[in-house]
């Protein structure tokens, strides 16, 4: 017989009260990143040495621009989740942990915003 209440079982959040959300999103973003990163590396190989106009025209293609924005959003979300685990595992002083966690997460979403905004500037620019 389980000692857990029916409500706790139904909620499925476990002893840490967080459930499997973080774990699951890290896996889903990982699966998405496999083809996206391979596509990005392949694209970058083709763009090495190309001049500004060629790279701009490549980024202005809706499929390239769309894939790039999706890649950036998923990549930085995956990175934020990964950094979170590393910080939780190795930083044990509560104050330091909170501070580094906030800085790391802020840095990830700031980088994501800067990168996506740059792509949009190129894609939509005159």
């Amino acid at each position, binding site marked *: 017989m389980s000692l857990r209440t029916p409500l706790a079982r139904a909620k499925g959040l476990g002893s840490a009260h967080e459930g499997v959300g973080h774990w699951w999103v890290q*896996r889903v973003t*990982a*699966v998405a*990143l*496999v083809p996206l*990163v*391979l596509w990005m*590396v392949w694209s970058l*190989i083709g763009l*090495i040495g190309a001049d*500004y*106009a060629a*790279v*701009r025209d490549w*980024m202005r293609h809706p499929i390239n621009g769309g894939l790039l924005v999706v890649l950036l959003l998923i*990549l*930085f979300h995956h*990175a934020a989740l*990964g*950094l979170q685990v*590393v910080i939780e595992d190795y930083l*044990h*002083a509560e104050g330091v942990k909170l501070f580094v966690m906030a800085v790391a997460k802020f840095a*990830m979403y700031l*980088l994501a915003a*800067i*990168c996506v*905004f*740059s*792509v949009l*500037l*190129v894609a939509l*620019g005159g």
Partner: protein
Amino acid sequence: MSSHGRPLSPHLQIYRPQLTSLLSVTHRGTGVVNTIGTVLLAYWLIALARGPESYAEAQAFFDFWLVKLALFGWTFSVFYHLCNGIRHLFWDAGLGYDIPTLYKSGYLVLAMACVLTVLTWLLV
């Protein structure tokens, strides 16, 4: 945390490194390195967004040998994390936990990361 004085596991001072543990910690390491490397990706996109002059500056920056060396290292880090990430996904599906398979998949990940890195830089 009042863990002072309590025994910790694993005892890192006497822990004998093995392929499985080395690849595991490398997965974390490469994850952090990949994240640091995204600053270069951001720089590339910012330079592109700011116009032809700053993009030319960025091209000169990426042509510098030390930066190229860093990019080569980053390429390996990305491919290692990608290959070993797929290995992790198989584990999440409950596959490949027996020791012989663990070692085979470990060596395969290392080989694939090296092959993909060299292939990428041969194509550049």
